[in-house]
C-alpha cells in the first residue's frame, strides 16, 4: 500500500480540515472554554458535531453500528485536532476506549457503543500509576469478591475522566506488579461507589484526574475480555493511543510551524522581513524536514497497525518518539522565532507549546519510546 492518502482518505482530510478550522478553531473552542473555566474541559456541542460528522464511531466495527475505519482515517482527524488544538475526548473515547470495547462481550458493547457513536457518552482510560507512563507495572488490584471484584488502588493522568460516563481501568487480578500476565480490564461506571476522583487542570487547560479506588465493587460482567487476559487488549489500546497521539503531535507541529513561517513572512526588523535572515530560514527548513519525516513515520505505523502487522509495535513506538521530538522542536522554535510576542497569552503559539507538553506525556514520552525501540530491537 502506498504511503500516502488514497482518494477517500484525501477527501476525509479535506472535510476534517475544514470542519476543525471552522468549528474547532482555537478562539471558538480552546480559548472559549478555558476562559470560562469549563468544568469538562471541552465543548459538548462540538462533541455532538463530531458525532454528526461520523467521527465518534470511526473505529467501531460496522456490525456494532460504527464506520469500521482504521487508524489512518482516525489519524487524519487527530492531525486536524492537533493543528487546531481542538479540545475533545476523541482520542480517549473514540480511539482508545473503542479499541478496548472491540474486545468486550456483546453485553458491554451493546451497553456502551451506541452512546460512544452518538456522542451522548464520553469515556476515559485509567492506565498510568504515578507521574510517568509505565504500563508494564500495574499495581491497582481487583480481588475476587462474591460473583464480582473489589477494586483498590490509584490511577493518575486519567484524561477526560471528569466528563466520562465510564472509565476503562487496567487492574491486576493475579501475580505481582511487574508481571506480564494477570491483568484484567474493567468497565467502571462513573457513579461507582468508593471511587474518588480528583480532577486537576493541566498546563494545556485540559483536565485530568487522579482516581482512587477504595474497594470499588464491580460485577463480573464489568470485565472486558478475559480475567487475567487483559494484557493483549491493553497492548492494543496502547498502540492505538500511541499512534493516535503521534498523529495529533504531527498536527501540533504543523500548526506551530505554519504560524511561525507565516510570522517570518510578515515581521520586520532592521528594515527587513525576518524571514530573509538565513539564520532563521535554515532553522525553519530543518523543522520542515523533521515534520515531513515524522508524518511518514506516523502513516507507516498507522498502516501497519491497520494491517495487523507484527512490525506495528516497533513502528508505533518509532512514530510516538519521533512525533514527540518533532512537536517539541516545532513549539520551541515557534516561541523563539516569534520573539517577545511569543511569550504573550494573546498569541496562539504559546498554546501549541502547552499542548505539546501535555501530549508528550500521554501514552509515553520520547525517552520511553526510544527505550522501547531499543528493547524491541534487542539491545
Amino acid at each position: 500500500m502506498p504511503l500516502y492518502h488514497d482518494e477517500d482518505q484525501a477527501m476525509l482530510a479535506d472535510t476534517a480540515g475544514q470542519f476543525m478550522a471552522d468549528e474547532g478553531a482555537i478562539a471558538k473552542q480552546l480559548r472559549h472554554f478555558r476562559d470560562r473555566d469549563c468544568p469538562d474541559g471541552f465543548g459538548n456541542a462540538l462533541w455532538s458535531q463530531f458525532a454528526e460528522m461520523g467521527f465518534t464511531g470511526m473505529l467501531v466495527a460496522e456490525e456494532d453500528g460504527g464506520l469500521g475505519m482504521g487508524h489512518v482515517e482516525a489519524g487524519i482527524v487527530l492531525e486536524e485536532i492537533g493543528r487546531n488544538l481542538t479540545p475533545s475526548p476523541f482520542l480517549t473515547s473514540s480511539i482508545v476506549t473503542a479499541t478496548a470495547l472491540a474486545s468486550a462481550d456483546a453485553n458491554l458493547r451493546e451497553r456502551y457503543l451506541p452512546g460512544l457513536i452518538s456522542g451522548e457518552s464520553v469515556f476515559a482510560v485509567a492506565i498510568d500509576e504515578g507521574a510517568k507512563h509505565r504500563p508494564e507495572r500495574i499495581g491497582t488490584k481487583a480481588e475476587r469478591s462474591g460473583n464480582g471484584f473489589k477494586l483498590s488502588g490509584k490511577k493518575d493522568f486519567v484524561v477526560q475522566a471528569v466528563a466520562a460516563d465510564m472509565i476503562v481501568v487496567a487492574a491486576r487480578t493475579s501475580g505481582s506488579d511487574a508481571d506480564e500476565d494477570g491483568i484484567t480490564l474493567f468497565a467502571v461506571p462513573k457513579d461507582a461507589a468508593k471511587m474518588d476522583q480528583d480532577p486537576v487542570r493541566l498546563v494545556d487547560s485540559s483536565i485530568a484526574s487522579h482516581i482512587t479506588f477504595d474497594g470499588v465493587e464491580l460485577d463480573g460482567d464489568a470485565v472486558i475480555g478475559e480475567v487475567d487476559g487483559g494484557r493483549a487488549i491493553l497492548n492494543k489500546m496502547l498502540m492505538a493511543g500511541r499512534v493516535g497521539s503521534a498523529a495529533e503531535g504531527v498536527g501540533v507541529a504543523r500548526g506551530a510551524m505554519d504560524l511561525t513561517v507565516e510570522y517570518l513572512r510578515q515581521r520586520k526588523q532592521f528594515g527587513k522581513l525576518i524571514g530573509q535572515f538565513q539564520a532563521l530560514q535554515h532553522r525553519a527548513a530543518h523543522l520542515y524536514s523533521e515534520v515531513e519525516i515524522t508524518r511518514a513515520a506516523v502513516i507507516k505505523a498507522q498502516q501497519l497497525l491497520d494491517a495487523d502487522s507484527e512490525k506495528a509495535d516497533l513502528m508505533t513506538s518509532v512514530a510516538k518518539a519521533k512525533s514527540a521530538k518533532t512537536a517539541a522542536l516545532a513549539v520551541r522554535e515557534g516561541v523563539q522565532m516569534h520573539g517577545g510576542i511569543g511569550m504573550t497569552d494573546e498569541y496562539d503559539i504559546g498554546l501549541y507549546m502547552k499542548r505539546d507538553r501535555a501530549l508528550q506525556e500521554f501514552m509515553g514520552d520520547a525517552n520511553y519510546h526510544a527505550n522501547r525501540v531499543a528493547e524491541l530491537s534487542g539491545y
Partner: protein
Amino acid sequence: MSETAELESFRQETRSWLEANCPPEMRQPAIEEEDVFWGGRNTEFASDAQKAWFEVCRDKGYTVPAWPTDYGGAGLNPEQAKILRQEMNQIGARPPLSSFGIWMLGPALLQFGTEGQKQHFLNEIARGEVRWCQGYSEPGSGSDLVSMQTFGEDKGDHWTVNGQKIWTSYADKADWIFCLVRTDKGNKYQGITFMLFDMHGGGVTTKPIKLISGNSPFCETFFDDAIVPKSYGDDCPGYVGEINRGWDVAKYLLGHEREMISGAGGGDRTAAIGALMKLHVAKEGGELDPLLRAELAMFDVDALAYSAMGEKFLDEVKVGKAHPAQPNMMKYAGTELNKRRHELMMSAGGSRSLEWDSDETGGGKPSRNWLRTKANSIEGGTSEVMLNVISKRILGLPDA
C-alpha cells in the same frame, strides 16, 4: 489491501527468477571496492558470480529495469519496479551494475535526449559497455556552480574545450564524461552547454585527489584543447538539450543526484544500527555504555522514521505527488543521518575502529568510511544549500 492478481503473479515470477538466477555470492553485502561492478571498456569482473549475475540481468533488462526495452531496460512500470526492488532487498541481492550512466546521464537523456541519443547511449549504459563520469564542479565553483568557467570555443562542427573540473568521481576510470561547458560568456544561466565526450579522445588528463579517508574516489580533470564534436551521427548530437541551455539539464540532474545521495543512507535492512553495535561491542569484550545506548536508540528512531520517509517519497514521486523541491529535503536529512550513523559506529567501535590498515578492520574500514561520510553533506549540494532551497521553494520565505 491486497495487490492485484497481476502484480502478485509478477511478484511470484520475480521471486522464482531471482532464486534461480542470483548466485549466492551476490546475495552478500558489497564490502570491498571490487564488489561493486561499474562496467566500462576496460572492466574486469572480480568473480565468476559477479559476471554471471551481471550478464543474466543485462539480458533481462534488469540493469535498468524501469527503462524502456528499446533502450536496454525491462520496461517495468513503477509498481513492478518497486516489487523487483523489494524482492531483491529481501534476498540481499547486489545491484548487478552500478554507474553514473544509470543514475544520472540516463535520466537526463530520457528527459531531454533525442531518439538517436537514447538508442545509442542508453543501450551502451544498460549493457555496461561505457563507464561515464560527471564534470560539474570547478575549483572556483562549488556551491555556486553556475559561475563555472570551463570554456568551449565554437569551431563550426566542434568545440575546443579548455578548463578544469574537480570532484569528478572516478574520472581516472571513466570512458566518457558528461560535462557542463560554458559556451556563452555573456550569459550566466543561458550560456552553458551539457556536452558528451570521450575521455580518451585527446586533450583530457585526470589526477586523483587523495582524501582524508586515504582513498581517491575523486579526480581533478583538465581540458587542454579537448575536441568535442557537435554530432556523433544522425540524430545524435554531442550535447543534451539545446546549446546554451545545459543549465536546465544540470538542474534536473542535480535533483536526481540528491535523491541518489539521500538514498545512500541505506534501505530498510540497514536503517537501525543499535542491535548490530551491541554485537560489535560484545565481540571486543565490552558492553554498551548506557548513554551510548540511549544515543543509538534515538538514532534508530530517526533512522526508521527516515526509512518510512524514503518509502513515502518514492511512492509520491511515482504519482507526481511529491513537491518538486522535496529531493532537497531527502538529501539534507539523509546525509546528516548518515554522518550521525558513522559517528555512533566509531563510538561503539572504540579504539578498534581507529585502526587504519589492520586486517581486523578490513584495512581501516570503520575510520575510512566515517571520514568519507563527511563529504555526504558537501557533494551534490551542501546541507546549507539544501536548506536555502527548502526555505525558499517550499516554505516561501523571501530572498535576502
